[in-house]
């Protein structure tokens, strides 16, 4: 059994128990693409409720939560092995925190860890532009921009924890935080 943490290590250890916890259960729900939008809409509506006093601030908070949630859940749906997706989310002072846990195969895990090592060693803004140029020149089936836009455009912090034995399913836990805009 091995455990690897990439990204902002402290974030992986942070408790998110004082907010919402949702389990999207594999099976009758047929975890399809549209669940990502529905779930992120719900989280944004629920978590942005305390900010309805200011229209602009509410719009900004709502959007940051919606974008971050949608990208993390899209990734879980795209890369998971058949298994539940567990989502935790909370607002703590001026941060929105979210954790998504799902299972991936060991090949995806290795590929993803290599990609993250590259991302974390470069400037995300520059890498975003490079990735966009690379996408335009290829017919790759994924854009690969989700994590890069979160880091470069939203100033999000992220941690990824990979847990499991080689050649077996790996439990991937992604934790993210984004600053809640002040205006």
């Amino acid at each position, binding site marked *: 059994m091995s455990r690897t943490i990439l990204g902002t290590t402290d974030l992986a250890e942070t408790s998110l128990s004082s907010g919402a916890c949702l389990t999207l259960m594999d099976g009758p729900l047929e975890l399809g693409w549209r669940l990502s939008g529905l779930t992120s809409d719900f989280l944004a509506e629920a978590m942005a409720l305390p900010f309805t006093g200011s229209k602009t601030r509410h719009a900004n908070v709502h959007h940051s939560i919606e974008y971050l949630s949608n990208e993390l859940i899209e990734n879980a749906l795209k890369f998971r092995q058949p298994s539940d997706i567990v989502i935790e989310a909370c607002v703590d002072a001026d941060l929105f925190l979210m954790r998504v846990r799902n299972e991936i195969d060991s090949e995806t895990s290795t590929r993803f860890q290599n990609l993250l090592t590259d991302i974390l060693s470069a400037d995300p803004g520059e890498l975003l*532009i490079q990735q*966009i140029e690379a996408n335009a020149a290829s017919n790759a089936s994924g854009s690969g921009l*989700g994590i890069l836009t979160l880091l470069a455009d939203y100033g999000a912090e992220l941690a990824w924890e990979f847990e499991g034995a080689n050649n077996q399913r790996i439990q991937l836990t992604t934790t993210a935080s984004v600053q809640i805009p002040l205006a």
Partner: protein
Amino acid sequence: MEIRDENFRVWAENECVYFDGVLRLAGPDAYSPIYSLAASLLHEDHARVIFDLTGLEFLNSSGINLLAKLTIEARKKPEIQLVIKATTQYPWQSKSLPNLKKLYSGLDLQLA
């Protein structure tokens, strides 16, 4: 020409492509009909092509990739002025659209 589902609508009128609603499609393949619709205007005889995003509330990262691909396509055709009309009303536009100017400085990004 129009592409729509219950969450979004994209359509072309003369030299303008309008994007409306919430766009969260699953990746480049799912976005390819929209790419074809918008890119076709860049291959017609227009002095100016406008992408009007002022009604687009939300776009996922795969959709941002679509806009970037279209910007790069326009970069290959400097005889056409690409205008992107955007609004600060939807926060994703202020956060992500300035990246398009980094791809193509000739782009006329109107963020108001």
